């Protein structure tokens, strides 16, 4: 039984990959998991591995070729196996790759629209016959979002919740009223059977690991803000808040630490990362994702840090940054930057950030505005630290000032909300002892 | 020899009988035409040939007596005094019909004439007649109810149950079997184990008689005795009135059909009840050719008037669909109204 080697989606956003090198050649025996090729994705160079044991019977794509996800690249099978059927099918596929590769993300919408109007007969539904398999799998993939009680659908609609994102606790995973109520209060009931979960139990569930976020339904005013401002400025109505922070105490801290020895040296950037992570933990409204029909506020801080590479920008993530010591943040930031530059980041290392920081201070940029990395709602742009003349209590003096600009998605974050975060950040940076408070 | 001078009261009565029977005939002839033109729909069962039964029977009743009949009810309705207009409008399905157009040919009702309806289920109305008899007895008084049905109905359980109770409880009910020989297309000999079917009353020890249904006077005579019995003794009677249907069972049935011969029909046509009465009156000098022609013209005009009236009457508005399914009253309301 021949197994196809196809272009796999090696990053969350990858639609096409370039086959950089074949690691094996035709006729080689391979085992499941053996690296067959290196593939350049939109983010990194990844390894493509064998999905079966056997002999690499055929390589169909020469090195350097870009191919859409799903393209047949080669065939693994038993030695001497007739693979002509597979290959002839592949020709058809190659001739019309788009039909062979249904864009997975589009399918749920099709299902939804088909499900919305029960009066449209199946034949008239806007789904090509060839898509039926995709439809079925899409339904399965979404956890059977069609299985929701009518009440649950209505409540979800009223609350502005996307029912596809809610796990059902009824029979066969049916989403029922209690699941919507749970989603509204930030609790996910996965296996709960009792329809009358006590508030104590709900409390317990709320503190369970792995669910450290809550979805905030959009209020009418929030919906209006989102709509009106998006009409004003692009799809993400961004505004900017700039502040100058006095780094005097950070400098003192660096000096004091440096006196303890090389092992204890900290950079301004390390302090900033620590301060941002700590401040974000206090401002989940900023540590949030815009999900179209709701805002997801995260309790955990997964801090993205923009890294420039020769190929372009990539944003590796320091997970649970709010829980990490400055020393660990410092080390992890350096490691990630190195991997990024070497294009060794794995997809899981550059996805999932809840907030990002971009630092162009080393380039001598006084201040700049960074572009939000959706679905995040804000990003912090760090400029260079420079000595400035200040007047304090009537006396003229100097101090080192760091100019920081926060870009905010106005759909989720209002000016005052961003400003409060910037205020917290100021307290952290201007009084670094707050970081250990 | 000079003709004996007729009794004026008798002459007037005979003219009324003739008029009643001829009206039914002229009315139903136009019904056939209206049916052919699509003005009457559904089932339509003509009574032509049996007019002496309706006229003979109902001419013996008082207005406060009751009448209930089958789906072949146009003749009895006219003989009972319902207006030709209200009946034709009912047949046309119009709002001025005697049941507002909701009943149709088979369901003519008129409370003002104590005409308790044409009923469409063979035998189904016979127990109802018994119930009316029960109510008469319950309230006291000397009313009676006449219940018409065909000879085919006597084989059905409802007839026996109803007849038994009427005899058992001594109720003033007159059951008139209009024996026109055919239950739809099945001859009586093919449906009943006995052929003198009035004898069935013997099972219930009920008064009974058989009479020539083409002779209106003979019908009046036996019905008169039955009415008297009901009024004075409160007991029921079963009358077999032998008649003949000159038309098919319904409009979809050929006049002679497969179940009877043209020769048989021709034989009975010689005993047309209207012709027999007219002949008798002419022989007695009670009506001249001119008077006969004038009467016929008058009745034809009356039927034409009914037709025009029905044609002009509107159908009920759509909102009437849900009217008269239930009444929105209780005995409290009725009592209040009575007070």
């Amino acid at each position, binding site marked *: 039984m021949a197994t196809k080697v196809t272009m796999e989606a090696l990053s969350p956003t990858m639609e096409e990959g370039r086959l950089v090198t074949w690691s094996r050649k035709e006729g080689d025996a391979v085992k499941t998991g053996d690296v067959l090729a290196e593939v350049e994705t939109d983010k990194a160079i990844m390894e493509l591995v064998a999905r079966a044991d056997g002999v690499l019977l055929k390589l169909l794509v020469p090195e350097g070729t870009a191919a859409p996800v799903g393209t047949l690249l080669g065939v693994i099978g038993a030695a001497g196996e007739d693979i002509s059927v597979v290959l002839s099918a592949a020709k058809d596929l190659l001739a019309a790759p788009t039909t062979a590769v249904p864009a997975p993300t589009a399918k749920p919408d099709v299902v939804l629209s088909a499900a919305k109007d029960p009066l449209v007969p199946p034949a008239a539904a806007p789904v090509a016959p060839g898509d039926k398999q995709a439809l079925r799998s899409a339904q399965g993939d979404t956890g059977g979002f069609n299985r929701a*009680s*009518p*009440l649950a*659908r*209505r409540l979800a609609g009223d609350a502005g919740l996307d029912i596809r994102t809610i796990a059902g606790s*009824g*029979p066969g995973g049916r989403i*029922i009223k209690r699941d919507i109520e749970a989603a509204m209060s930030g609790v996910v009931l996965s296996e709960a*059977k*009792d*329809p*009358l979960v006590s508030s104590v139990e709900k409390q317990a569930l709320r503190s369970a690991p792995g669910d450290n976020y809550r979805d905030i339904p959009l209020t009418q005013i929030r919906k209006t803000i989102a709509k009106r401002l998006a009409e004003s400025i692009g799809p993400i109505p961004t505004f900017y808040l700039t502040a100058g922070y006095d780094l005097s105490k950070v400098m003192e801290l660096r000096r004091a630490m440096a006196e303890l020895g090389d092992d204890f040296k900290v950079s301004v950037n390390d302090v900033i990362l620590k301060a941002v992570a700590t401040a974000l933990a206090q401002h989940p409204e900023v540590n949030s994702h815009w999900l179209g029909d709701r805002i997801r506020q995260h309790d955990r801080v997964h801090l993205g840090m923009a890294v420039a590479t020769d190929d372009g920008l990539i944003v590796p993530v320091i997970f649970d940054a709010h829980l990490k010591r400055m020393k660990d943040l410092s080390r992890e930031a350096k490691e990630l930057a190195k991997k990024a530059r070497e294009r060794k980041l794995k997809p899981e290392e550059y996805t999932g950030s809840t907030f990002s920081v971009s630092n162009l201070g080393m380039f001598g940029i006084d201040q700049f505005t960074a572009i939000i990395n959706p679905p995040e709602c804000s990003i912090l742009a760090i400029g260079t630290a420079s000595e400035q003349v200040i007047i304090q209590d009537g006396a003229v003096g100097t101090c080192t000032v760091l100019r920081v600009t926060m870009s905010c998605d106005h759909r989720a974050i209002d000016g005052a909300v961003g400003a409060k975060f910037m205020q917290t950040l100021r307290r952290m940076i201007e009084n670094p002892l707050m970081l250990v408070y | 020899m000079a003709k004996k001078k007729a009794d004026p009261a008798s002459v007037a009565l005979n003219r009324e009988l003739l008029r009643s029977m001829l009206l039914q005939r002229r009315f139903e002839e136009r019904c056939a035409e209206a049916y052919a033109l699509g003005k009457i729909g559904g089932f339509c069962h003509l009574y032509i040939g049996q007019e002496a039964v309706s006229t003979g029977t109902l001419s013996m009743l008082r207005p406060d007596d*009751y009448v*209930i009949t089958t789906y072949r009810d146009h003749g009895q309705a006219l003989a009972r005094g319902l207006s030709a207009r209200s009946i034709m409008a009912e047949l046309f399905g119009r709002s001025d019909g*005697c*049941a*507002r*157009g*909701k*009943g149709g040919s088979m*369901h003519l*009702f008129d*409370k003002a004439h104590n005409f*308790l*309806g044409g*009923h*469409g*289920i063979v035998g*189904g*109305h016979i*127990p*109802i*007649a*018994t*119930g*009316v*008899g*029960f*109510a*008469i*007895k*319950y*309230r006291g008084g000397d009313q009676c109810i006449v219940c018409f049905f065909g000879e085919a109905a006597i084989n059905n359980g*409802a007839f026996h*149950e*109803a007849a*038994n*109770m009427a005899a*058992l409880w001594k109720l003033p009910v007159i059951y008139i079997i209009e024996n026109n020989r055919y239950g739809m297309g099945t001859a009586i000999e093919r449906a009943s184990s006995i052929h003198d079917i009035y004898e069935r009353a013997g099972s219930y020890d009920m008064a009974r008689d058989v009479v020539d249904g083409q002779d209106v006077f003979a019908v009046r005579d036996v019905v008169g005795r039955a009415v008297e019995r009901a009024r004075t003794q409160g007991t029921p009677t079963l009358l077999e009135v032998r008649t003949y249907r000159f038309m098919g069972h319904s409009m979809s049935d050929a006049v002679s059909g497969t179940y009877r011969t043209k020769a048989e029909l021709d034989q009975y046509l010689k005993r047309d009840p209207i012709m027999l009465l007219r002949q008798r009156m002419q022989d007695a000098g009670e009506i001249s050719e001119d008077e006969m022609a004038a009467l016929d013209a008058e009745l034809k005009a009356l039927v034409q008037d009914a037709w025009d009236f029905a044609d002009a009457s509107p159908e009920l508005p759509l909102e009437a669909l849900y*009217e*008269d*399914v*239930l*009444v929105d*009253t*209780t*005995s*409290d*309301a009725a*009592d209040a109204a009575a007070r």
Partner: protein
Amino acid sequence: MAIMTYRDALNAALREELRRDDRVFLMGEEVAVYQGAYKVSKGLLQEFGEMRIVDTPITELGFAGVGVGAAMVGLRPIIEFMTWNFALLALDQIVNAAAKMLYMSGGQYNMPIVFRGPNGAALQLGAQHSQAWESWLAHIPGLKVVAPGTPADAKGLLKAAIRDDNPVMVLEGEMLYNVKGEVPDSSDFVIPLGKAEVKRAGTDASIITYGKMVNIALQAAEVLAKDGVQVEVLDLRTLRPMDVPAIVATVMKTNRAVVLEEGWEVCGMGAQVVDYIQRECFDSLDAPIVRVHQADTPMPYTKSLEKAAKPDLAKTVSALRAVCYLD
């Protein structure tokens, strides 16, 4: 208030209405001399005489028709069927005559008549005597159908039925006749037709039922209460016209419904209730509706099989647990 049996409540209703209105009479098999096959008419012959309490031959079609005829000309008959199983013989009078007379006469002849008797199964009476006919009757426009489940409702609904100017079918229960309960003494105690009653309030699930099954529903609610589940029991009382607003209100409140009936599933009353729910409460349902009913078989005589065929407490509890996702 007096504590009395369902049988005595019916007897009181008959007696009071016979006294109140001399157009009212009772007719049926064994209602007079025998004092009623189930003694519902006990003592009435003695008080009202043989013209108003009338024994009939065994002729359901015949005496049903007698009732129809009497009603057409102004009396107010109460026709007793020894059981509704026998009333099938009278269906022509009920369906073709009583239900349609007003309509096909263009509004001239209304039908102030009551047909009443025990409905449904008792114990081991076998296939022909153990049937619930309410869905047959409630199917017919022109009829009203009531099914009292308690002594008080039996009195109030029968009195309302007798006073109503339309044909009303009163479905009693042989197994109910000995059930005791509080019954208002007043001769003016009348329960309006078409009004359901919440027999027990609850928040977590609704059980919609009527007649004999009301007691089962109340027992089931008690069982569920031990698990902390509050079941609302809605007694329809009148099956036609049905109190749809009451059904909607309870389902909107609890979002879950069990429909309990004595009869068969296919085209049963419950199917109609479910239809009203899906029509009016679709967006309030949190679980599929579950119906509890008799097994889809003629009723067996065999004791254990009969028990298996009937809707009972265990099946009702199980259905309630199912709609609450408890199992």
